Protein backbone atom coordinates (compact mmCIF):
# COMPACT_ATOMS: atom_id res chain seq x y z
CA UNK A 1 0.00 0.00 0.00
CA UNK A 2 1.23 3.48 -0.77
CA UNK A 3 1.42 5.35 2.51
CA UNK A 4 -1.06 8.11 2.89
CA UNK A 5 0.46 11.44 2.23
CA UNK A 6 0.85 14.23 4.68
CA UNK A 7 -1.05 17.48 4.77
CA UNK A 8 1.10 20.20 6.24
CA UNK A 9 -1.10 22.30 8.50
CA UNK A 10 -3.84 19.67 8.75
CA UNK A 11 -6.50 20.31 11.39
CA UNK A 12 -6.88 17.90 14.30
CA UNK A 13 -10.11 16.42 12.89
CA UNK A 14 -8.33 15.33 9.69
CA UNK A 15 -9.16 11.69 8.81
CA UNK A 16 -12.11 11.55 11.23
CA UNK A 17 -15.35 10.01 9.90
CA UNK A 18 -17.85 12.78 9.28
CA UNK A 19 -20.54 11.23 11.41
CA UNK A 20 -18.16 11.31 14.35
CA UNK A 21 -17.27 14.97 13.96
CA UNK A 22 -18.69 16.77 16.94
CA UNK A 23 -18.33 20.48 16.25
CA UNK A 24 -20.59 22.35 18.62
CA UNK A 25 -21.83 25.85 18.30
CA UNK A 26 -21.65 28.19 21.25
CA UNK A 27 -24.73 30.10 22.32
CA UNK A 28 -23.44 33.13 20.45
CA UNK A 29 -22.84 31.09 17.32
CA UNK A 30 -26.34 29.62 17.52
CA UNK A 31 -27.65 33.16 17.62
CA UNK A 32 -25.44 34.11 14.69
CA UNK A 33 -26.75 31.18 12.65
CA UNK A 34 -30.31 31.99 13.55
CA UNK A 35 -29.75 35.54 12.30
CA UNK A 36 -28.34 34.29 9.00
CA UNK A 37 -31.29 31.96 8.55
CA UNK A 38 -33.77 34.73 9.25
CA UNK A 39 -32.02 37.08 6.87
CA UNK A 40 -32.04 34.45 4.15
CA UNK A 41 -35.79 34.12 4.67
CA UNK A 42 -36.29 37.89 4.64
CA UNK A 43 -34.40 38.13 1.37
CA UNK A 44 -36.89 35.88 -0.38
CA UNK A 45 -40.12 37.04 1.30
CA UNK A 46 -41.18 39.36 -1.48
CA UNK A 47 -40.54 36.90 -4.33
CA UNK A 48 -43.44 35.11 -5.99
CA UNK A 49 -41.59 31.80 -5.97
CA UNK A 50 -39.27 30.24 -3.43
CA UNK A 51 -35.74 29.64 -4.66
CA UNK A 52 -36.40 25.89 -4.66
CA UNK A 53 -39.53 26.34 -6.79
CA UNK A 54 -37.57 28.60 -9.11
CA UNK A 55 -34.69 26.13 -9.27
CA UNK A 56 -36.93 23.15 -10.06
CA UNK A 57 -38.94 25.09 -12.62
CA UNK A 58 -35.72 26.24 -14.28
CA UNK A 59 -34.50 22.67 -14.51
CA UNK A 60 -37.73 21.61 -16.19
CA UNK A 61 -37.87 24.61 -18.52
CA UNK A 62 -41.10 25.78 -16.92
CA UNK A 63 -42.26 29.32 -16.28
CA UNK A 64 -40.50 31.22 -13.55
CA UNK A 65 -40.99 34.64 -11.97
CA UNK A 66 -37.41 35.64 -12.62
CA UNK A 67 -34.12 34.13 -13.60
CA UNK A 68 -32.44 31.96 -11.00
CA UNK A 69 -29.34 33.65 -9.67
CA UNK A 70 -26.59 32.57 -7.33
CA UNK A 71 -22.92 32.97 -6.60
CA UNK A 72 -20.57 30.03 -6.30
CA UNK A 73 -17.87 31.62 -4.16
CA UNK A 74 -15.64 28.63 -3.44
CA UNK A 75 -14.15 28.34 0.02
CA UNK A 76 -11.65 31.09 -0.72
CA UNK A 77 -14.18 33.85 -1.26
CA UNK A 78 -17.09 32.86 0.95
CA UNK A 79 -14.91 33.33 4.05
CA UNK A 80 -14.67 37.03 3.24
CA UNK A 81 -18.30 37.47 4.17
CA UNK A 82 -17.43 36.75 7.77
CA UNK A 83 -15.14 39.74 8.31
CA UNK A 84 -16.79 42.34 6.08
CA UNK A 85 -14.11 41.73 3.43
CA UNK A 86 -11.39 43.00 5.75
CA UNK A 87 -8.89 40.26 4.69
CA UNK A 88 -8.62 39.39 8.38
CA UNK A 89 -10.05 35.88 8.43
CA UNK A 90 -8.24 33.87 5.78
CA UNK A 91 -9.30 31.07 3.47
CA UNK A 92 -7.01 28.67 5.36
CA UNK A 93 -9.18 29.22 8.42
CA UNK A 94 -12.18 27.96 6.49
CA UNK A 95 -10.35 24.82 5.37
CA UNK A 96 -9.30 24.03 8.92
CA UNK A 97 -12.54 24.89 10.67
CA UNK A 98 -15.75 23.45 9.23
CA UNK A 99 -17.87 25.65 11.47
CA UNK A 100 -16.30 28.71 9.84
CA UNK A 101 -16.77 27.07 6.44
CA UNK A 102 -20.48 26.60 7.14
CA UNK A 103 -21.05 30.02 8.68
CA UNK A 104 -19.19 31.69 5.83
CA UNK A 105 -21.54 30.13 3.30
CA UNK A 106 -24.63 31.08 5.26
CA UNK A 107 -23.36 34.62 5.79
CA UNK A 108 -22.61 34.83 2.10
CA UNK A 109 -26.11 33.89 1.00
CA UNK A 110 -27.61 36.17 3.64
CA UNK A 111 -25.42 39.06 2.47
CA UNK A 112 -25.90 38.74 -1.27
CA UNK A 113 -29.52 37.53 -1.28
CA UNK A 114 -28.95 34.73 -3.76
CA UNK A 115 -31.16 31.75 -4.53
CA UNK A 116 -28.90 28.85 -3.56
CA UNK A 117 -26.19 27.94 -1.09
CA UNK A 118 -23.33 26.20 -2.85
CA UNK A 119 -20.70 24.26 -0.91
CA UNK A 120 -17.53 23.72 -2.87
CA UNK A 121 -15.25 20.86 -1.89
CA UNK A 122 -12.60 21.39 0.79
CA UNK A 123 -10.24 19.01 -0.89
CA UNK A 124 -9.45 17.71 -4.32
CA UNK A 125 -7.60 14.86 -2.64
CA UNK A 126 -4.21 16.51 -2.37
CA UNK A 127 -3.08 14.31 0.51
CA UNK A 128 -5.48 11.40 0.17
CA UNK A 129 -3.73 9.80 -2.77
CA UNK A 130 -0.31 9.20 -1.30
CA UNK A 131 1.18 12.60 -1.95
CA UNK A 132 2.43 15.37 0.29
CA UNK A 133 0.43 18.55 0.41
CA UNK A 134 0.10 21.77 2.28
CA UNK A 135 -2.59 24.20 3.23
CA UNK A 136 -2.09 27.68 1.83
CA UNK A 137 -3.17 30.86 3.50
CA UNK A 138 -5.10 32.32 0.60
CA UNK A 139 -5.95 29.40 -1.64
CA UNK A 140 -7.07 25.82 -1.93
CA UNK A 141 -4.57 23.21 -0.57
CA UNK A 142 -1.89 22.11 -3.01
CA UNK A 143 0.03 18.92 -3.57
CA UNK A 144 3.75 19.50 -3.20
CA UNK A 145 5.02 16.01 -3.96
CA UNK A 146 3.15 13.30 -5.84
CA UNK A 147 2.86 9.88 -4.21
CA UNK A 148 2.55 7.76 -7.35
CA UNK A 149 5.61 7.48 -9.53
CA UNK A 150 5.39 3.95 -10.92
CA UNK A 151 2.86 1.35 -11.96
CA UNK A 152 3.68 -0.55 -8.77
CA UNK A 153 2.77 2.53 -6.72
CA UNK A 154 -0.48 2.80 -8.66
CA UNK A 155 -1.29 -0.87 -8.03
CA UNK A 156 -0.84 -0.42 -4.31
CA UNK A 157 -2.84 2.82 -4.14
CA UNK A 158 -5.99 2.44 -2.05
CA UNK A 159 -9.03 4.43 -3.08
CA UNK A 160 -9.88 6.86 -0.26
CA UNK A 161 -13.28 6.92 1.44
CA UNK A 162 -14.72 10.46 1.44
CA UNK A 163 -16.75 9.67 4.53
CA UNK A 164 -13.64 9.40 6.66
CA UNK A 165 -10.46 10.39 4.85
CA UNK A 166 -8.63 13.70 4.78
CA UNK A 167 -10.59 16.93 4.69
CA UNK A 168 -13.62 15.38 2.98
CA UNK A 169 -15.46 14.67 6.23
CA UNK A 170 -15.46 18.40 7.03
CA UNK A 171 -17.21 19.06 3.76
CA UNK A 172 -19.85 16.35 4.38
CA UNK A 173 -20.38 17.59 7.93
CA UNK A 174 -20.99 21.15 6.71
CA UNK A 175 -23.47 20.08 4.03
CA UNK A 176 -25.40 17.94 6.48
CA UNK A 177 -25.30 20.57 9.22
CA UNK A 178 -26.64 23.11 6.77
CA UNK A 179 -29.56 20.78 6.02
CA UNK A 180 -30.24 20.42 9.75
CA UNK A 181 -30.14 24.20 10.20
CA UNK A 182 -32.42 24.71 7.23
CA UNK A 183 -34.78 22.13 8.67
CA UNK A 184 -34.85 23.94 12.00
CA UNK A 185 -35.53 27.33 10.45
CA UNK A 186 -37.90 26.06 7.76
CA UNK A 187 -35.57 26.67 4.89
CA UNK A 188 -35.45 23.01 3.93
CA UNK A 189 -37.10 22.61 0.55
CA UNK A 190 -37.06 26.41 0.25
CA UNK A 191 -33.40 27.18 -0.52
CA UNK A 192 -31.49 24.53 -2.47
CA UNK A 193 -28.28 23.18 -0.97
CA UNK A 194 -25.78 22.56 -3.71
CA UNK A 195 -22.58 20.60 -3.17
CA UNK A 196 -19.78 19.85 -5.56
CA UNK A 197 -17.77 16.65 -5.76
CA UNK A 198 -15.00 18.36 -7.74
CA UNK A 199 -12.69 17.57 -9.33
CA UNK A 200 -13.51 15.21 -12.17
CA UNK A 201 -11.55 11.94 -12.32
CA UNK A 202 -8.93 13.13 -14.81
CA UNK A 203 -8.10 16.20 -12.80
CA UNK A 204 -7.65 14.29 -9.56
CA UNK A 205 -4.98 12.24 -11.34
CA UNK A 206 -3.28 15.39 -12.61
CA UNK A 207 -3.51 17.60 -9.54
CA UNK A 208 -3.37 15.09 -6.70
CA UNK A 209 -1.64 11.95 -7.83
CA UNK A 210 0.88 12.51 -10.60
CA UNK A 211 1.53 16.24 -10.52
CA UNK A 212 0.31 18.54 -13.24
CA UNK A 213 3.03 17.95 -15.81
CA UNK A 214 2.99 14.14 -15.63
CA UNK A 215 -0.75 14.10 -15.07
CA UNK A 216 -1.49 16.08 -18.21
CA UNK A 217 0.91 14.06 -20.32
CA UNK A 218 0.16 10.55 -18.97
CA UNK A 219 -2.88 9.99 -21.22
CA UNK A 220 -0.56 10.61 -24.15
CA UNK A 221 2.67 8.85 -23.19
CA UNK A 222 1.89 6.66 -20.20
CA UNK A 223 -1.48 5.29 -21.10
CA UNK A 224 -1.51 2.12 -19.00
CA UNK A 225 -0.63 4.02 -15.85
CA UNK A 226 -3.20 6.64 -16.73
CA UNK A 227 -6.00 4.09 -16.99
CA UNK A 228 -4.98 2.37 -13.78
CA UNK A 229 -5.24 5.67 -11.94
CA UNK A 230 -8.32 7.13 -13.57
CA UNK A 231 -10.24 3.92 -12.82
CA UNK A 232 -9.51 4.53 -9.15
CA UNK A 233 -10.33 8.22 -9.20
CA UNK A 234 -13.59 7.53 -11.03
CA UNK A 235 -14.55 5.01 -8.39
CA UNK A 236 -13.74 7.62 -5.75
CA UNK A 237 -15.67 10.38 -7.46
CA UNK A 238 -18.78 8.25 -7.79
CA UNK A 239 -18.51 7.42 -4.10
CA UNK A 240 -17.96 11.08 -3.18
CA UNK A 241 -21.09 12.05 -5.07
CA UNK A 242 -23.02 9.33 -3.24
CA UNK A 243 -21.63 10.53 0.11
CA UNK A 244 -22.86 14.07 -0.63
CA UNK A 245 -26.33 12.73 -1.41
CA UNK A 246 -26.17 10.81 1.89
CA UNK A 247 -25.24 14.07 3.62
CA UNK A 248 -28.55 15.42 2.23
CA UNK A 249 -27.35 17.82 -0.42
CA UNK A 250 -30.24 18.81 -2.71
CA UNK A 251 -27.98 19.02 -5.76
CA UNK A 252 -24.63 17.35 -6.45
CA UNK A 253 -22.55 18.67 -9.30
CA UNK A 254 -19.03 18.44 -10.63
CA UNK A 255 -16.74 20.58 -12.74
CA UNK A 256 -15.26 19.71 -16.06
CA UNK A 257 -12.07 21.06 -17.48
CA UNK A 258 -10.80 19.14 -20.41
CA UNK A 259 -9.54 21.50 -23.04
CA UNK A 260 -5.98 20.78 -21.92
CA UNK A 261 -6.16 17.65 -24.03
CA UNK A 262 -6.69 17.26 -27.76
CA UNK A 263 -10.19 15.97 -28.57
CA UNK A 264 -8.95 12.52 -29.59
CA UNK A 265 -7.18 12.04 -26.25
CA UNK A 266 -10.21 13.38 -24.42
CA UNK A 267 -12.54 10.98 -26.22
CA UNK A 268 -10.45 7.87 -25.65
CA UNK A 269 -8.81 8.45 -22.28
CA UNK A 270 -11.00 10.79 -20.29
CA UNK A 271 -14.58 11.25 -21.42
CA UNK A 272 -15.78 7.67 -20.75
CA UNK A 273 -14.95 8.14 -17.09
CA UNK A 274 -16.88 11.39 -16.88
CA UNK A 275 -19.86 9.59 -18.37
CA UNK A 276 -19.69 6.98 -15.63
CA UNK A 277 -19.52 9.66 -12.96
CA UNK A 278 -22.54 11.44 -14.38
CA UNK A 279 -24.56 8.22 -14.49
CA UNK A 280 -23.50 6.54 -11.27
CA UNK A 281 -22.97 9.57 -8.95
CA UNK A 282 -25.41 10.55 -10.11
CA UNK A 283 -24.70 14.14 -11.00
CA UNK A 284 -27.35 16.78 -11.16
CA UNK A 285 -25.16 19.21 -13.08
CA UNK A 286 -21.91 19.60 -14.92
CA UNK A 287 -20.06 22.77 -14.01
CA UNK A 288 -17.93 24.77 -16.33
CA UNK A 289 -14.44 25.62 -17.28
CA UNK A 290 -11.85 25.14 -19.85
CA UNK A 291 -13.95 23.27 -22.29
CA UNK A 292 -14.19 23.84 -25.93
CA UNK A 293 -16.90 23.09 -28.37
CA UNK A 294 -15.20 19.92 -29.60
CA UNK A 295 -14.89 18.52 -26.09
CA UNK A 296 -18.44 19.15 -25.02
CA UNK A 297 -19.59 17.65 -28.31
CA UNK A 298 -17.65 14.49 -27.54
CA UNK A 299 -19.08 14.21 -24.04
CA UNK A 300 -22.54 14.67 -25.45
CA UNK A 301 -21.96 11.96 -28.07
CA UNK A 302 -20.93 9.52 -25.35
CA UNK A 303 -24.00 10.29 -23.25
CA UNK A 304 -22.22 12.29 -20.56
CA UNK A 305 -24.96 14.89 -20.44
CA UNK A 306 -27.90 12.48 -20.45
CA UNK A 307 -28.23 12.08 -16.67
CA UNK A 308 -27.80 15.74 -15.67
CA UNK A 309 -30.33 18.53 -15.36
CA UNK A 310 -28.04 21.48 -16.08
CA UNK A 311 -24.90 22.28 -17.92
CA UNK A 312 -22.77 25.30 -17.20
CA UNK A 313 -20.35 26.35 -19.87
CA UNK A 314 -17.87 29.08 -19.15
CA UNK A 315 -18.07 32.43 -20.81
CA UNK A 316 -15.06 31.72 -22.95
CA UNK A 317 -17.39 29.45 -24.82
CA UNK A 318 -19.53 31.73 -27.01
CA UNK A 319 -22.89 32.21 -25.33
CA UNK A 320 -24.74 31.57 -28.56
CA UNK A 321 -23.08 28.17 -28.85
CA UNK A 322 -23.83 27.36 -25.22
CA UNK A 323 -27.49 28.20 -25.63
CA UNK A 324 -27.85 26.22 -28.86
CA UNK A 325 -25.93 23.28 -27.45
CA UNK A 326 -28.04 22.98 -24.32
CA UNK A 327 -31.24 23.69 -26.24
CA UNK A 328 -30.57 20.70 -28.47
CA UNK A 329 -30.23 18.52 -25.41
CA UNK A 330 -33.18 20.18 -23.69
CA UNK A 331 -31.02 20.93 -20.69
CA UNK A 332 -31.13 23.93 -18.48
CA UNK A 333 -28.18 26.12 -19.11
CA UNK A 334 -26.59 28.16 -16.42
CA UNK A 335 -24.17 30.74 -17.59
CA UNK A 336 -21.12 31.07 -15.45
CA UNK A 337 -19.69 34.50 -15.34
CA UNK A 338 -16.10 33.82 -14.52
CA UNK A 339 -14.04 35.98 -12.28
CA UNK A 340 -12.94 37.94 -15.33
CA UNK A 341 -16.17 39.82 -15.87
CA UNK A 342 -17.31 39.81 -12.27
CA UNK A 343 -14.11 41.45 -11.03
CA UNK A 344 -14.12 44.06 -13.78
CA UNK A 345 -15.86 47.40 -14.10
CA UNK A 346 -19.53 47.61 -13.27
CA UNK A 347 -20.70 48.92 -16.62
CA UNK A 348 -19.06 46.06 -18.47
CA UNK A 349 -20.54 43.65 -15.94
CA UNK A 350 -24.03 45.01 -16.44
CA UNK A 351 -23.68 44.89 -20.22
CA UNK A 352 -22.43 41.31 -20.06
CA UNK A 353 -25.27 40.20 -17.79
CA UNK A 354 -27.88 41.80 -20.05
CA UNK A 355 -26.34 40.20 -23.12
CA UNK A 356 -26.35 36.79 -21.49
CA UNK A 357 -29.94 37.16 -20.32
CA UNK A 358 -31.05 38.07 -23.80
CA UNK A 359 -29.45 35.04 -25.37
CA UNK A 360 -30.09 32.69 -22.48
CA UNK A 361 -33.80 33.35 -22.41
CA UNK A 362 -34.21 33.20 -26.17
CA UNK A 363 -35.43 29.64 -26.02
CA UNK A 364 -38.74 29.32 -24.18
CA UNK A 365 -39.18 25.92 -22.61
CA UNK A 366 -35.48 25.44 -21.94
CA UNK A 367 -34.30 26.71 -18.58
CA UNK A 368 -31.71 29.39 -17.94
CA UNK A 369 -30.01 30.57 -14.79
CA UNK A 370 -27.20 33.00 -14.03
CA UNK A 371 -24.34 31.90 -11.83
CA UNK A 372 -21.06 33.56 -11.05
CA UNK A 373 -18.47 31.00 -10.09
CA UNK A 374 -14.88 30.79 -8.88
CA UNK A 375 -15.06 34.34 -7.65
CA UNK A 376 -11.58 35.70 -7.33
CA UNK A 377 -10.40 36.80 -3.93
CA UNK A 378 -10.05 40.49 -4.71
CA UNK A 379 -13.47 40.86 -6.36
CA UNK A 380 -15.12 43.82 -4.63
CA UNK A 381 -18.36 42.84 -2.87
CA UNK A 382 -20.04 45.71 -4.73
CA UNK A 383 -19.50 43.75 -7.92
CA UNK A 384 -21.29 40.73 -6.48
CA UNK A 385 -24.12 43.02 -5.39
CA UNK A 386 -24.25 44.53 -8.86
CA UNK A 387 -24.36 41.11 -10.51
CA UNK A 388 -27.24 39.87 -8.37
CA UNK A 389 -29.14 43.14 -8.65
CA UNK A 390 -28.72 43.19 -12.40
CA UNK A 391 -30.01 39.65 -12.84
CA UNK A 392 -32.97 40.28 -10.56
CA UNK A 393 -33.84 43.52 -12.34
CA UNK A 394 -33.41 42.48 -15.96
CA UNK A 395 -34.24 38.83 -15.36
CA UNK A 396 -37.84 39.39 -14.32
CA UNK A 397 -40.31 37.81 -16.70
CA UNK A 398 -41.46 38.95 -19.16
CA UNK A 399 -37.90 39.89 -20.15
CA UNK A 400 -37.84 43.40 -21.53
CA UNK A 401 -34.34 43.61 -23.00
Amino acid at each position, binding site marked *: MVNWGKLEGAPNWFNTPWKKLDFRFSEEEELEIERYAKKIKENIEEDKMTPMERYNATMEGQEVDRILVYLAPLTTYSIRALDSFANAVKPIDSFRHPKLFLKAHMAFVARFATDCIDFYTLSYGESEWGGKAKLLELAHP*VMTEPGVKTMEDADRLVVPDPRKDGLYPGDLWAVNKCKQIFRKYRLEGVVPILASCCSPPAWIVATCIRGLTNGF*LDPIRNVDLWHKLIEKTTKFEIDYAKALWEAEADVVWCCQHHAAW*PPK*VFKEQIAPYDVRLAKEGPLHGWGYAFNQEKHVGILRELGGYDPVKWVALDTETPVEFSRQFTKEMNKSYTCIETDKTLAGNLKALEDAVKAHIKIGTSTPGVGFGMVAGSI*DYWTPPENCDAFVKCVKEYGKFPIKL
Partner: protein
Amino acid sequence: MAEKKALLEQIKQAILDENEELVKDLVNKALEVKIPAYDILMKGLNPGLVAAGEKYEKMEFFLTDLMLIGEATKTVMDIIQPHLKAEKAEVSGKVVIGTVEGDIHDIGKNIVIAMLSGAGFEVHDIGIDQPSKNFVQKAVEVNADIVGASAILGATKIRVKEINEELRKAGIRDKVGLICGGWGFTEEVAKKFGADAHGEDAVDALRKTEELIKWLKEKRGD
Protein backbone atom coordinates in the same frame (compact mmCIF):
# COMPACT_ATOMS: atom_id res chain seq x y z
CA MET B 1 23.10 26.00 -48.55
CA ALA B 2 19.90 24.30 -49.66
CA GLU B 3 20.71 21.40 -47.38
CA LYS B 4 21.14 23.71 -44.40
CA LYS B 5 17.85 25.38 -45.20
CA ALA B 6 16.16 21.99 -45.43
CA LEU B 7 17.64 20.97 -42.09
CA LEU B 8 16.25 24.10 -40.42
CA GLU B 9 12.88 23.36 -41.96
CA GLN B 10 13.06 19.83 -40.55
CA ILE B 11 13.75 21.26 -37.09
CA LYS B 12 10.67 23.44 -37.40
CA GLN B 13 8.58 20.43 -38.42
CA ALA B 14 9.98 18.20 -35.67
CA ILE B 15 8.95 20.84 -33.14
CA LEU B 16 5.45 20.90 -34.61
CA ASP B 17 5.39 17.11 -34.52
CA GLU B 18 6.38 17.25 -30.83
CA ASN B 19 9.21 14.83 -31.56
CA GLU B 20 11.81 15.65 -28.94
CA GLU B 21 14.24 12.90 -29.94
CA LEU B 22 14.20 13.90 -33.59
CA VAL B 23 14.60 17.58 -32.68
CA LYS B 24 17.65 16.69 -30.59
CA ASP B 25 19.20 14.70 -33.45
CA LEU B 26 18.50 17.41 -36.00
CA VAL B 27 19.91 20.19 -33.83
CA ASN B 28 23.10 18.22 -33.21
CA LYS B 29 23.38 17.55 -36.92
CA ALA B 30 22.83 21.24 -37.64
CA LEU B 31 25.67 22.18 -35.30
CA GLU B 32 27.90 19.58 -36.94
CA VAL B 33 27.39 21.12 -40.36
CA LYS B 34 28.25 24.51 -38.84
CA ILE B 35 24.84 26.14 -38.93
CA PRO B 36 25.17 28.99 -36.41
CA ALA B 37 23.25 28.36 -33.18
CA TYR B 38 21.48 31.67 -33.65
CA ASP B 39 20.13 30.49 -37.00
CA ILE B 40 19.03 27.20 -35.44
CA LEU B 41 17.16 29.28 -32.87
CA MET B 42 15.63 31.92 -35.10
CA LYS B 43 15.18 29.99 -38.34
CA GLY B 44 14.44 26.50 -37.02
CA LEU B 45 13.07 26.57 -33.49
CA ASN B 46 11.36 29.94 -33.56
CA PRO B 47 9.27 29.33 -36.70
CA GLY B 48 8.16 26.03 -35.15
CA LEU B 49 7.05 27.80 -32.00
CA VAL B 50 5.32 30.55 -33.93
CA ALA B 51 3.44 27.96 -35.97
CA ALA B 52 2.53 26.06 -32.80
CA GLY B 53 1.25 29.28 -31.26
CA GLU B 54 -0.92 29.93 -34.28
CA LYS B 55 -2.36 26.44 -34.11
CA TYR B 56 -3.06 26.92 -30.41
CA GLU B 57 -4.93 30.14 -31.09
CA LYS B 58 -6.98 28.38 -33.73
CA MET B 59 -7.71 25.62 -31.19
CA GLU B 60 -5.94 23.03 -33.29
CA PHE B 61 -3.27 22.60 -30.63
CA PHE B 62 -3.99 22.24 -26.94
CA LEU B 63 -2.18 22.72 -23.68
CA THR B 64 -0.57 19.28 -23.82
CA ASP B 65 0.76 20.02 -27.30
CA LEU B 66 2.44 23.16 -25.99
CA MET B 67 3.80 21.23 -23.02
CA LEU B 68 5.42 18.64 -25.28
CA ILE B 69 6.77 21.35 -27.53
CA GLY B 70 8.03 23.14 -24.44
CA GLU B 71 10.00 20.05 -23.45
CA ALA B 72 11.48 19.80 -26.93
CA THR B 73 12.36 23.49 -26.82
CA LYS B 74 14.15 23.08 -23.52
CA THR B 75 16.19 20.27 -25.05
CA VAL B 76 17.15 22.49 -27.97
CA MET B 77 18.06 25.40 -25.71
CA ASP B 78 20.21 23.18 -23.48
CA ILE B 79 22.16 22.11 -26.55
CA ILE B 80 22.55 25.47 -28.24
CA GLN B 81 22.94 27.77 -25.22
CA PRO B 82 26.75 27.36 -24.97
CA HIS B 83 27.01 27.94 -28.71
CA LEU B 84 24.86 31.08 -28.52
CA LYS B 85 27.17 32.42 -25.82
CA ALA B 86 30.23 31.63 -27.89
CA GLU B 87 28.68 33.34 -30.90
CA LYS B 88 27.82 36.32 -28.69
CA ALA B 89 24.41 36.09 -30.28
CA GLU B 90 22.07 39.01 -29.99
CA VAL B 91 19.57 38.63 -27.18
CA SER B 92 16.03 39.92 -27.66
CA GLY B 93 15.90 40.91 -24.03
CA LYS B 94 16.43 39.60 -20.52
CA VAL B 95 13.49 38.20 -18.62
CA VAL B 96 13.17 37.08 -15.02
CA ILE B 97 10.18 34.81 -14.56
CA GLY B 98 8.68 32.87 -11.70
CA THR B 99 5.51 31.70 -10.00
CA VAL B 100 4.49 33.95 -7.15
CA GLU B 101 4.60 33.14 -3.47
CA GLY B 102 1.87 30.78 -2.37
CA ASP B 103 1.42 29.27 -5.82
CA ILE B 104 3.17 26.13 -7.04
CA HIS B 105 1.80 25.84 -10.56
CA ASP B 106 4.32 26.08 -13.35
CA ILE B 107 2.98 24.56 -16.52
CA GLY B 108 2.00 27.87 -18.06
CA LYS B 109 5.21 29.49 -16.91
CA ASN B 110 7.28 26.71 -18.48
CA ILE B 111 5.52 27.09 -21.78
CA VAL B 112 6.08 30.85 -21.66
CA ILE B 113 9.78 30.20 -20.98
CA ALA B 114 9.91 27.96 -24.05
CA MET B 115 8.22 30.61 -26.20
CA LEU B 116 10.49 33.37 -24.92
CA SER B 117 13.67 31.29 -25.29
CA GLY B 118 12.64 30.32 -28.76
CA ALA B 119 12.27 33.96 -29.63
CA GLY B 120 15.79 34.78 -28.52
CA PHE B 121 15.13 36.02 -25.00
CA GLU B 122 17.55 35.23 -22.20
CA VAL B 123 15.25 33.80 -19.55
CA HIS B 124 16.03 33.43 -15.86
CA ASP B 125 13.54 31.11 -14.20
CA ILE B 126 13.47 31.60 -10.44
CA GLY B 127 11.01 28.78 -9.87
CA ILE B 128 7.74 28.42 -8.00
CA ASP B 129 6.39 29.81 -4.73
CA GLN B 130 8.75 32.77 -4.91
CA PRO B 131 8.57 35.72 -2.53
CA SER B 132 8.12 39.01 -4.34
CA LYS B 133 11.58 40.23 -3.28
CA ASN B 134 13.20 37.34 -5.16
CA PHE B 135 11.83 38.55 -8.47
CA VAL B 136 13.41 41.93 -7.92
CA GLN B 137 16.66 40.55 -6.56
CA LYS B 138 17.15 38.47 -9.68
CA ALA B 139 16.10 41.35 -11.92
CA VAL B 140 18.80 43.53 -10.38
CA GLU B 141 21.37 40.74 -10.55
CA VAL B 142 20.92 40.06 -14.26
CA ASN B 143 19.94 43.59 -15.27
CA ALA B 144 16.61 42.34 -16.53
CA ASP B 145 14.38 44.16 -18.98
CA ILE B 146 11.22 42.32 -18.00
CA VAL B 147 9.88 40.63 -14.90
CA GLY B 148 7.20 38.01 -15.51
CA ALA B 149 4.97 36.75 -12.71
CA SER B 150 2.74 33.72 -12.99
CA ALA B 151 -0.19 33.35 -10.59
CA ILE B 152 -3.04 30.90 -11.05
CA LEU B 153 -4.42 30.48 -7.56
CA GLY B 154 -6.95 33.29 -7.23
CA ALA B 155 -5.82 35.09 -4.15
CA THR B 156 -2.11 34.86 -4.94
CA LYS B 157 -2.53 37.18 -7.92
CA ILE B 158 -2.26 40.05 -5.49
CA ARG B 159 1.48 39.28 -5.22
CA VAL B 160 1.90 41.08 -8.53
CA LYS B 161 1.06 44.26 -6.67
CA GLU B 162 3.84 43.43 -4.21
CA ILE B 163 6.32 42.80 -6.98
CA ASN B 164 5.42 46.15 -8.48
CA GLU B 165 6.10 47.81 -5.13
CA GLU B 166 9.37 45.98 -4.65
CA LEU B 167 10.50 47.09 -8.09
CA ARG B 168 9.71 50.65 -7.09
CA LYS B 169 11.57 50.35 -3.79
CA ALA B 170 14.58 49.00 -5.66
CA GLY B 171 14.48 52.07 -7.90
CA ILE B 172 14.18 50.10 -11.12
CA ARG B 173 10.46 50.20 -11.83
CA ASP B 174 10.85 52.68 -14.68
CA LYS B 175 13.54 50.53 -16.30
CA VAL B 176 11.77 47.17 -16.07
CA GLY B 177 8.54 46.01 -17.66
CA LEU B 178 6.21 43.94 -15.49
CA ILE B 179 4.04 41.31 -17.14
CA CYS B 180 1.82 38.80 -15.42
CA GLY B 181 -0.28 35.83 -16.39
CA GLY B 182 -2.36 32.98 -15.10
CA TRP B 183 -5.89 31.71 -15.39
CA GLY B 184 -8.42 34.35 -14.45
CA PHE B 185 -6.11 37.32 -14.86
CA THR B 186 -7.49 40.12 -16.96
CA GLU B 187 -5.80 43.16 -18.42
CA GLU B 188 -7.85 45.28 -16.05
CA VAL B 189 -6.83 43.42 -12.90
CA ALA B 190 -3.22 43.25 -14.05
CA LYS B 191 -3.12 47.03 -14.53
CA LYS B 192 -4.84 47.54 -11.19
CA PHE B 193 -1.96 45.65 -9.58
CA GLY B 194 0.56 47.77 -11.40
CA ALA B 195 1.58 45.43 -14.20
CA ASP B 196 2.36 46.86 -17.63
CA ALA B 197 0.87 43.94 -19.46
CA HIS B 198 -0.89 40.67 -19.06
CA GLY B 199 -0.48 37.53 -21.16
CA GLU B 200 -3.75 35.79 -21.87
CA ASP B 201 -1.79 32.63 -22.67
CA ALA B 202 1.79 31.72 -23.58
CA VAL B 203 1.42 32.92 -27.14
CA ASP B 204 0.00 36.22 -26.01
CA ALA B 205 2.70 36.48 -23.32
CA LEU B 206 5.39 36.36 -25.98
CA ARG B 207 3.62 38.96 -28.08
CA LYS B 208 3.17 41.30 -25.11
CA THR B 209 6.77 40.80 -23.97
CA GLU B 210 8.03 41.77 -27.41
CA GLU B 211 5.80 44.84 -27.35
CA LEU B 212 7.05 45.75 -23.89
CA ILE B 213 10.67 45.44 -24.97
CA LYS B 214 9.99 47.73 -27.92
CA TRP B 215 8.30 50.24 -25.63
CA LEU B 216 11.18 50.10 -23.14
CA LYS B 217 13.75 50.62 -25.88
CA GLU B 218 11.85 53.63 -27.20
CA LYS B 219 11.63 54.98 -23.68
CA ARG B 220 15.36 54.50 -23.14
CA GLY B 221 16.17 55.94 -26.54
CA ASP B 222 17.95 52.74 -27.58
